[in-house]
């Protein structure tokens, strides 16, 4: 058991032990969500700002519900309805929110590094809810939690992440978390979206989807992020589906116990066949349930993190 961090900014700087501490703690919080009374007083009297400068539905809702179940008071702040539209800088916005004596800031931002920046200029605890193409730490933690829950372990498992890796903060956080926990990570997708440079993160890169999924224990599908692509990286969605989509024919050639994961939102018929998304091997909705438990655990742990934390510029 070890957690003395005031912020959760990324997975890259976490140790294996710290990741396991979050996963162990999340198990207890998952049990809270299964009770008749799903609320505990752990963050009673604390104020959390959900600062979602980039649009998000599922992550924001998951954080909000986690905070409510910990009895925190919540301020929701979205870019569309805020003074950021009027030209206020992120720093000024955040300092104004802190002037209201808030204790936690959960931030989603299109700029990589925005959470670290806030952690340096504010006294509040900062939790990264996704920054640009950098990291999405709570997603990686809930993915790891789901794998461990279903498979009993992570070390030694073959995990294939399939899709848009280049623009994916989920992929980056997943790679950090799963390699630290001892999984064998394979990345696959169009060569324009899965460059070889990712091998430096300790994983295998292939552009042959059938080979990538054949021995996989976990197939983690990522959505094509149209909104982050500045130019066309592949000919079209139809071609993507035929070359890289998880179709019934491809699924038939995987291990019978391989699990299908997806961080959502899924594009049915593009990266995943509609029936596969709903089949017994899909754990997509369990990921959503586990997201609550993991986010409760993160808030609970960060609340106790008093140690000075070096935040790299």
């Amino acid at each position, binding site marked *: *058991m070890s*957690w*003395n961090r005031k912020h959760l900014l990324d997975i890259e700087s976490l140790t294996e032990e710290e990741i396991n501490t979050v996963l*162990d*703690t999340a*198990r*207890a*919080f998952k*049990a*809270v969500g299964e*009770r*008749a*009374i799903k*609320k*505990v*007083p*752990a*963050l009673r009297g*604390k104020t959390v700002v959900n600062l979602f400068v980039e649009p998000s539905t599922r992550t924001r809702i998951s954080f909000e519900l986690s905070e409510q179940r910990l009895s925190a008071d919540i301020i929701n702040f979205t870019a569309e309805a805020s003074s950021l539209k009027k030209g206020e800088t992120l720093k000024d916005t955040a300092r104004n929110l802190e002037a209201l004596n808030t204790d936690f800031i959960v931030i989603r931002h299109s700029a990589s590094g925005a959470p670290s920046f806030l952690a340096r200029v504010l006294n509040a605890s900062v939790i990264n809810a996704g920054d640009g193409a950098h990291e999405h730490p709570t997603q990686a933690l809930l993915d790891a939690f789901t794998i461990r829950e279903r498979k009993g372990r992570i070390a030694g498992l073959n995990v294939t992440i399939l899709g848009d890796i280049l623009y994916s903060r989920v992929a980056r956080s997943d790679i950090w978390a799963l390699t630290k926990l001892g999984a064998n990570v394979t990345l696959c997708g169009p060569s324009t979206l899965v460059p070889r440079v990712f091998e430096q993160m300790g994983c295998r890169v292939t552009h042959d989807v059938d080979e990538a999924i054949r021995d996989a224990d976990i197939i983690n599908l990522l959505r094509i992020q149209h909104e982050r692509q500045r130019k066309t990286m592949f000919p079209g969605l139809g071609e993507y589906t035929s070359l890289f989509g998880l179709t019934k024919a491809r699924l038939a050639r995987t291990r019978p116990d391989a699990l299908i994961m997806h961080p959502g939102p899924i594009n049915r018929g593009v990266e995943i066949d509609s029936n596969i998304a709903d089949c017994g091997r899909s754990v997509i909705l369990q990921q959503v349930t586990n997201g609550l438990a993991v986010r409760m655990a993160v808030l*609970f*742990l960060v*609340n*106790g*993190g*008093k140690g000075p934390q070096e935040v790299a510029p």
Partner: protein
Amino acid sequence: MPETTIVLDRSAIQRALTRIAHEIVERNEDSQVVVLVGIQKGGVPLARRLSGLLAGIWGHAVPAGELDVSMHRDDLDQRVAPEVQPTVIPFDVTGKTVVLVDDVLFSGRTTRAAMDALNDFGRPRCIQLAVLVDRGHRELPIKADFVGKNFPTAHSETIKVKVDEAGAADEVILERK
């Protein structure tokens, strides 16, 4: 090196638990409504042991659960987050007589947190408290119903309870700094 003294050995602990079990029997005429809930971590093996002793006296199974109080502590913003242990209460506590079981009673704050945590599972008819050692220094108006041993201590001393479900290596140790 801190100075250590064994204040309860294996047989003394077994005698204390047997006496507590008989006191619970004496206090509770309707054995069917009594359930045990051990407070994580030290209270859990003690609750299981008491459950076995009570089953031997009453001739029927006595349910035992385990309760973690981390999320209900009153010092969460003054300390590193505690290690959260499982909470498993495989029965409805509403209308039951819940005997909370802990190894050491000290400030009483853990007991208060346990009563709050238990509330989330239902409304017991009454709650009783059984502890192996009461070391004094209460900070809240809380008193145990069943005590294995009263042991007045100084604040600078610590009590370590080593008890497992099998009872093979039971010991209560006092450490002086």
